[in-house]
Structure formats: structure tokens, C-alpha cells
């Protein structure tokens, strides 16, 4: 995107939120939230519905006022500015395209509102249309477009004014699965090419993992973890993050021994070792939650599992096969478990791996101790 709009403050900006609070009645929807993203970053706000992510988005856009805290874009405090003076683009979940205007007129709307006219206006519109590959549809009415095309018009409309920041509120949720997967890649590419700082709200963990530079996992109006996707997946910092992103086997247990590098947890299904680094302040007797990602687990038939001679220490548990779910390239094997209140225990096995699993089979699970995740459990659990 070029110089046609260089006259306005079109510089892509970083965002800083500090101490944001928003209450509805006595309920704090956003609860003292601090957050900052770098210029040009693509960040997802990931959380279940009602976690406050859309409210936060609307506070950043200026569509609702926060009760406390500051919103700083670049080096401008915009907390008190109304939405129309912030120059923050928004792509709405329902797109909110203007039905009485054509595709081109929709895109021209923001430019006109900023006082752009004549050839500059035409150039801005065609540039935005080119960015989303819809140049041929400029004169179509909105009603003549497919869902995916409407989505792209919404993006084009939002980037046409060269906003300092672009916010996307579950923009792909109205599309069918196939199109959604294509659009995830396309959308990220479009925004990268436009050099936008983007915040993407979603409840879809896969979408967040696919699209983001960093993911902020939100729960109860707070950010539980803010990290790169691979870190979020491999080292979720809270049980909520563990549960919300990806699958995991989980056991409740009690710390029985703490050594220099390891802690040992006694569970109903046997003892499980974990690196002490996963929970440095663990003390014997503490109630903990132990988890492991299913693809870390290896399964073997009991009779073939001989003495452990592994290079890396592994946890081993004897289990009985329950259900097997076929997922194409992988199988997900669930095991029978007597545990109450914890997640089902499961392993993910490549389909071409030849361990046959029938319900009732006795198997041995093992996984590297280093991949064991441990979380303290509050008394209420």
C-alpha cells in the first residue's frame, strides 16, 4: 500500500493496554488487564465465549468506554478518543458491510470520511480491492457476493484507510470449514502484505495456532498466557491454557517426593515423574494436576515391554484400551480410567504405526519425563 494515503497518520502502531477494567453491574468482564503488542505483530485473543475478548476488542476500537485503565496506540493515549477519531480498523463478525452501497462504495466510505477525494479516492479503492483480489467486483452490490467475498470486502474496507491497527472479531466464524481454512492463510497473508498490526479475536484454538505470531489466552477477563503458539502448546502456563489449547491426558495426584531435578507425583494410576522446573515451589503433600500431550505418549503391548533402558527417563503406566477414534492420519486411543473429575487419558498414534488396539487390551503407556506438565491445584478442586 503506497503513498496515496501518506498524508494521514498511517503509520502502523504498537498497542499498549494497562489496567483495563470493564464492569457490567458488579460483574467485571475485563478485570485489570495489561497487554502490549509490537508494531506489525499478528496477535490472537483466544478464549471461550464470555471471557471478555470481544469486550476488550470493543474497548480498543473505542466502541465502548472502559471503567479504568489506558489504551495507548503508538505513542498516543486514545483512551478518551471516540471511535471515529482513533483510526483503528475493525472487521466485524457479521462483516457489517453497508448493504445500500456497492463493493467499491463500501471501500470508499472510510476514505471519504477521512476527506479523501477524486483520483486519490479512486486509487485508494482500487489499491484496497487489489490487496484482497476483488478488483473485478468493484461495482457489484454486496448482496451479489459469497460469504468469502464479503469477508474480503470487509478486510479491504478496514485496511483502505491505512489504520494504525486492525481488529478482527471472529471474522471467519460465518464461513464453512473448507473456506475458513483457506481464508486463515489468505487473511494472514493479506494483513502481512499490508504491514498491519492486527489483533484477531477467536474462540477457535486451531485458528489461533495457524494465524498468530503470538496468542493471548483469555479467561475471566484476564490474560492467562501470552506467548508464541508453539510455547502455548508445549508449555501451557495454567490448567486453563492446557485445556483450552489442544488435547491432554490428565491425572490428579499428590506430590510424594521432591528431589534436585525431579518431583514425583502419586496418582490413582501409579507414580508419575515430572521435571522440578515445571513446578519449582512444589512441596511433598501438595495436590497437583499432571498432564501430558497425547502425541508424546507411546503405547506398547505389555508382553513386549521389557526392562526400561531408555536414554531419557520415561514415565510408564499400565492401562486398558477403551475407545479408538480414527482421525485420518492419526488415531486417538482412549483408555479406561477410574479417575473422577480428571480428563480422559488418551494417546495419539500415527495410523501407519502398527500397534493394534482393541477395547480391553492391556497396554503400557510411556512418555519422556521432560514432557510432563504439572500445575498446583487449589483446595476447591
Amino acid at each position, binding site marked *: 500500500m503506497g503513498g496515496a494515503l501518506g498524508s494521514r497518520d498511517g503509520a502502523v502502531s504498537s498497542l499498549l493496554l494497562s489496567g483495563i477494567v470493564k464492569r457490567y453491574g458488579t460483574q467485571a468482564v475485563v478485570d485489570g488487564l495489561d497487554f502490549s503488542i509490537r508494531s506489525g505483530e499478528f496477535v490472537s485473543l483466544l478464549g471461550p465465549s464470555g471471557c471478555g475478548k470481544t469486550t476488550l476488542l470493543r474497548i480498543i476500537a473505542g466502541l465502548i468506554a472502559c471503567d479504568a485503565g489506558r489504551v495507548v496506540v503508538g505513542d498516543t493515549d486514545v483512551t478518551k478518543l471516540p471511535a*471515529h477519531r482513533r483510526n483503528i480498523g475493525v472487521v466485524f463478525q457479521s462483516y*457489517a458491510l453497508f*448493504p445500500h452501497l456497492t463493493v467499491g462504495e463500501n471501500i470508499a466510505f472510510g476514505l471519504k470520511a477521512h476527506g479523501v477525494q477524486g483520483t486519490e479516492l479512486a486509487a485508494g479503492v482500487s489499491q484496497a480491492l487489489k490487496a484482497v483480489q476483488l478488483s473485478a467486483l468493484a461495482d457489484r452490490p*454486496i448482496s451479489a457476493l459469497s460469504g468469502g467475498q464479503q469477508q474480503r470486502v470487509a478486510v479491504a474496507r478496514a485496511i483502505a484507510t491505512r489504520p494504525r491497527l486492525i481488529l478482527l472479531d471472529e471474522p471467519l466464524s460465518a464461513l464453512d470449514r473448507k473456506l475458513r481454512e483457506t481464508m486463515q492463510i489468505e487473511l494472514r497473508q493479506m494483513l502481512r502484505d499490508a504491514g498491519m498490526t492486527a489483533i484477531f479475536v477467536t474462540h477457535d484454538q486451531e485458528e489461533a495456532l495457524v494465524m498468530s505470531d503470538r496468542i493471548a489466552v483469555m479467561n475471566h477477563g484476564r490474560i492467562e498466557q501470552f506467548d508464541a503458539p508453539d510455547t502455548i502448546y508445549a508449555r501451557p502456563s495454567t490448567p486453563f491454557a492446557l485445556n483450552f489449547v489442544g488435547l491432554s491426558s490428565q491425572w490428579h495426584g499428590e506430590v510424594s517426593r521432591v528431589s534436585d531435578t525431579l518431583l514425583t507425583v502419586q496418582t490413582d494410576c501409579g507414580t508419575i515423574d515430572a521435571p522440578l522446573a515445571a513446578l519449582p515451589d512444589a512441596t511433598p503433600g501438595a495436590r497437583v494436576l499432571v498432564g501430558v500431550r497425547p502425541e508424546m505418549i507411546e503405547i506398547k503391548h505389555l508382553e513386549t515391554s521389557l526392562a526400561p533402558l531408555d536414554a531419557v527417563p520415561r514415565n510408564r503406566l499400565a492401562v486398558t484400551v477403551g475407545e479408538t477414534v480414527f482421525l485420518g492420519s492419526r488415531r486417538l486411543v482412549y483408555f479406561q480410567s477410574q479417575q473422577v473429575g480428571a480428563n480422559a487419558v488418551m494417546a495419539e498414534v500415527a495410523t501407519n504405526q502398527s500397534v493394534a488396539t482393541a477395547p480391553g487390551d492391556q497396554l503400557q503407556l510411556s512418555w519422556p519425563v521432560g514432557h510432563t506438565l504439572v500445575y498446583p491445584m487449589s483446595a476447591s478442586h
Partner: protein
Amino acid sequence: MASTAHSATSRVAWLAIPGAGYLLLVFALPLALLLASSFQSEQGGFTWQGYTNFLSDPFNATVVWNTLKIAFIVTGLCLLIGYPTAFAMARTSLPVQGGMFLALILPLSVGVIVKSFAWTIILRSNGPINHILMSLGIVDDPVKLLFNERGLVIAAVHVFLPFMVLPIFTVARQIDSRMQEAAATLGATPVHTFLKVTWPLSLPGVVTGCAFVFSMAVSMYVIPALLIGDRYQTLPAMMARAYLFMRDRQAGSTMAVVLLLIAVFIVVASTLLTRRLQARTQAQGVAA
């Protein structure tokens, strides 16, 4: 596909028969008789007399002007008051919306005569409005609100307001409030948003409401009769006088035809306008 669609359409067409038949009998037929009698001389032959008489009397021009002027003022005021009301109603919580609905609909069940008579009590020199104005010291002498255009307009706006609010409400309710938010995030001021988004999207409701109110205001008889009396002539009042007192069927019919033409012109024009707007606004269902 085409044949099933066609037969479905023709079956649906039967549903229109009761309404169409009723209208034919009680509306189209009398209308034809009316039209005929406006061209009928006393001897029973064809004549342009009624129209030449009507058009040659400059007083009639004043009457038509008065009638149109009042109708336009009433329509304009109804729009001015009704538009924000309709949007407030569309955007408020359901219980409040229900209350507003009742406040709007219930007065319709009170007859126009009762309402007009009530207004004569409220507006008269020693009525509550003048009482309040004088006791607050805003005016020294009673404001003349009865037997002039002011009172007529006040009462007519009150009677016709629901017919402006309801069509606009119906359209306003369908306008996604994200439209206004989207406009704001694109840098549009509230005024710009109103002019370029809200107003065009609500136009179909505005046009329908204005057509309703205008055609009722241009033909109202009871309200002016009670609030102004004979001093101020409107077309419907003259028509009534021609029929009831002067027993001049031709003159009455002629005026009825003139009034009808005005009303038909307004309604047809506004319908065409709505059509054109809706052709562009079809997307609402998809985008909203």
C-alpha cells in the same frame, strides 16, 4: 422448477380474492360512480363543467394550497418527532419497547372525534396549556391555539404519529447496529454516519410513514372540523359542504376526484421511490 413455482404463485393468487373482491365492491365501484358523477351535468349529459368551475375559482386554489400546506407540515412534524422515537424504540430493551408500543397503539382505539374534542379542551384559552404558560409567566395573555392552524397541526400530529413511527420502527429494527459502529471505526462522525448510513437504510420506512401520514392528513375532515370550524377551508371540508349543505353532487365529486388524484400521486410516487431503494438494499438479509 419453473412450472412448480408458477403453480405455487397461481395458488397463492387465490388468497387475494376476498380482499380484491371486497375492494372492488365497496371501493372501486363507488369510485367509478364518483368519477362519473363529476362529469355529469344536471340534465344527465357529459360535461367538463365541474372541473372548469373548480379551476376557474381562485378561492379553490387557496383551499388546495391550505390543504397541502397543512398536510406537509403535519407530515414533516410527524417525521421529526417519529423518527427518533422509532429508533429509540428499536434499540431499547424489550419491556420498554412493549411499553412504547402500548403507548403508541392504545390511543388508536380512541376515536378521532374523542381525541379532537379532548384537544379542544386542552387548547382553549382557559385550558391547561394556557394555564401553565401563564402561571409560569411565559406569556401574559392566553395564546390562541384553538380555531387556527396551530391547534390543528398539534392535534393532527398527535393523531397521525403512530402511522409514522410504526413503519420506521419496523425498518429501524432490521438495521444492524454494527453498521453505525463500522462507520465510526472507518472515521465517520456521527453526523456523517447518520447521513450516509442510517438515513439511507431507513428510507423505506420513512417513505411508507410519510405516505401514510400525508394521505391521511390531506383528507382529514373531523380534526379540522372540530379544531378550526368553518373559518379555515380545506378540500375535505369543502367537499363535505358541497355534498351535505349545498347538495351539489357534481362539485363534491369533482373535489373528491382532485383530492384523490393528489393522494394517488403521492402514494404512487413514494411506492416507486421505495421500490428503487429496496432494489439496492436487498443485501440486508445476507450481510446482517
